[in-house]
Structure formats: structure tokens, C-alpha cells
């Protein structure tokens, strides 16, 4: 591969990553993802494991939860709660930004 080659990316639509892909992207095994979905910590599109798809937002949340679990030896419930609060903080920052207050 040279720096002159032009690589065309595939845009993931709103339901873009498979179970294996999100597991790979978070450096976890698929059981971790399945457990976190079944406990309601990760949003998923699709009614069966075989056709589950994960959005980019779900990937960001999964990576955040994984990092909290790893960095602080946090149980999944606590990591998900922290992720909820960080999501809320992001939403508030967006509102501040919208109002020109940030």
C-alpha cells in the first residue's frame, strides 16, 4: 500500500455492525456483547442474535462501558450507569453548544 492509493470507505448505515464486528471493534469476545445486550446495557437492532446490528452510537457506548469496566474493575451495572451519565453530559454539552454557551 502506498500513500497514493485512494481507499474508498464503506459508510455504515444506521444499523451497521454485526455482533462479531462490534466485538472485534471493542476487543472483547462476543459473549461480552451478548451479555450486555441481554442486560439492556447496549442498544441493538434486530430481534434475534443472528440478525443483530449495532449502530455507530452503540459502538461508542460499548467502548465506553468496556473502558470503565477495565480501568476501574467496575461491574457492568456500574459501568452502564456511568455511561448513562456521560451520555447525558454529552447531550447537555450539545445543548450548551447550540446556545452558544460553551
Amino acid at each position, binding site marked *: 500500500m502506498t*500513500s497514493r492509493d485512494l481507499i474508498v470507505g464503506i459508510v455504515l448505515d444506521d444499523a451497521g455492525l454485526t455482533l462479531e464486528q462490534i466485538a472485534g471493534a471493542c476487543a472483547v469476545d462476543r459473549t461480552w456483547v451478548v451479555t450486555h445486550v441481554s442486560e439492556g446495557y447496549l442498544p441493538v437492532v434486530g430481534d434475534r442474535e443472528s440478525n443483530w446490528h449495532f449502530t455507530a452510537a452503540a459502538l461508542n457506548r460499548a467502548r465506553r462501558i468496556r473502558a470503565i469496566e477495565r480501568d476501574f474493575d467496575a461491574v457492568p451495572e456500574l459501568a452502564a450507569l456511568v455511561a448513562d451519565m456521560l451520555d447525558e453530559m454529552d447531550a447537555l454539552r450539545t445543548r450548551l*453548544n447550540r446556545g452558544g454557551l460553551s
Partner: protein
Amino acid sequence: MEFKDYYQVLGVERGATADEVKKAYRKLARKYHPDVSKEPDANTRMRDVNEANAVLSDPEKRAAYDQVGRGYQPGQDFRPPPDWDAGFEFSGSGEPPGAGADFSDFFSQIFGRRGGGGARFQQGGNFQARGQDHHAKVMLEIEDAFEGAERQITLRVPKADAQGRVQVEDRALNVKIPKGVFAGQMIRLAGQGSPGHGGAPAGDLLLEVAFNSHDRYRVEGRDIHLRLPVTPWEAALGAVVPVKAPGANLEVRIPAGAQSGRQMRVRGKGIPAASPGDLYLDLQVVLPPAQTPEAKAVYENMARELAFDPRAAATEGAP
């Protein structure tokens, strides 16, 4: 390559117990966590802290680090001696310092990109594993979502030399960003992550789309919000005004009696897609300055001729 003193990074003594290392790590992980830290160099500090913890919390790596780093001072030029790791057997069970995290050259030189397999992990017999996915954020201008863009992205990737040692190299990729992307969306570049091992496929590179902030535009999903200044007479009487929006120059009809804060929607003029976003115009009535006698006369005339009190509702019934 500069020597990193991981004990100094975590602020612990060289003889610190595993509990002391863990406690110091958690304290610093909280301080420099990129989601909450206000420190300007939080990302860099968090990487260093993660690296230090990955080494000092693992007895095998810690012992190897203590041996190879004996006599070095922080910042001193560092070269690991040949075969420094002879006699050490890494279990390979250690977790890299942060999935998808960047590694310092120092860490990669000693422990390899994966952090757990030692510097020679790539020569592992029949071991097969798909390469790690990489993540990066690509910053675009809002206009790029309308026209597409090309961006050069530099990745730091480990490569084994003839002796099997891992060196970190910069790899530049020219990436075509298709039009129609929006913030938070992921672009997957198949096979552009870390190489696989033992014939397994390479990982992917996942690019997260983000937009640089803009003076006039704001993006929400596929919708574009634009602040549109209008004159008092355009707002009061109605007018057709030109609007320079991303991707199009439009003529928009302002209805008579419009006020500041009113929002108008131009359907389908947001970020293009099968279901394109909308363009929202946030009207802002701007008063001309009364700096000349003529301008003052106009305002004085308005004051005389228009029976207008914007505070009437607020003062109604007040004593």
C-alpha cells in the same frame, strides 16, 4: 526513543505492591479520563497511565521492564539490548492498554503492539488471530458532507523486522469520504487495521465522522441549522432573500411579520441521502445602527408613528 519511567508515571515507589499500583492507577484514570478531564493533555496522560498500568500490574511484564530499564533515567535515550527478553515467558493473557488506544514507541518496542505476547508474538507457530481493529476520528468541514472529500489519515502500525522485533511505523492512507455522511457515523475501511497473525485476515479501520465547528452552520444528524440575519423591514414586510447554504445557493421567502427566533424549514436541503436532511433557518432580526442624523430621524419617526410597546404584555396590570 526516550525511556519512560512507569513508576514515576503512576507516582509509586519501585517496590510498590500490586494494591498500591492499582490504587494509583485508578486515581489517575479518574483524573485523566478523556470523558471528564479538563486537563489539556488528558489524552496523552491517560495513554501513559494506561501503559504504565499495563506493565506494572502484570508481574511478568513488570519483571521484564525492571530488568531492561535498570539504570535508565526518564527521558534518557533508550535502546533495549539484544535478546533482552530471553528467559521471560509472556503468557499473552495481558490486555493491551486500552482497546484501540495508541501506544508509545517505547511500549511497542518492548512489549509489541498487542501488549501481551511480547516482542516476538508474530512468530507464534500455528497461532491464528484476526488483526485488531483501529479507530480514528476524521474531522470534516460541513461542506464535505455535500460534496464528499478526500482526507489523508496517518496510522501508527507495528511491523516486525528481520529479527522479529516490532517497530512502529507511520502509514499514510488517502481515504475517500463519500458525500452524505453525518456526525457520529462510522466509515469502515476493510482490512486497514492491524495485520492478522498466521494467515488470519487483517482488522478494519473504523473512522468516526465529526465536523469542525462553523460560524454560521450547525449540524444535527442530517439536518443543517443556519442563522439567517434579516433586516427589520424584511421581517415586517416579508421579502425574498438570498441564502448561502452548504451545497446550494437558495432564494427563501420570509413571511411578513416574522420575528427573531422564528425557525423556517427548507425541506430536503440538509445533508444529502436517500432521505435527505432539512435546512433550518433561524431568523435573527438585526437593527441598523442609528449613528447618522438620517438614521436617527428614521427611528424617531417610527417612535412617533408606530404605537408599539414590546413590554405591554409584561407591564399589563403592574402597579
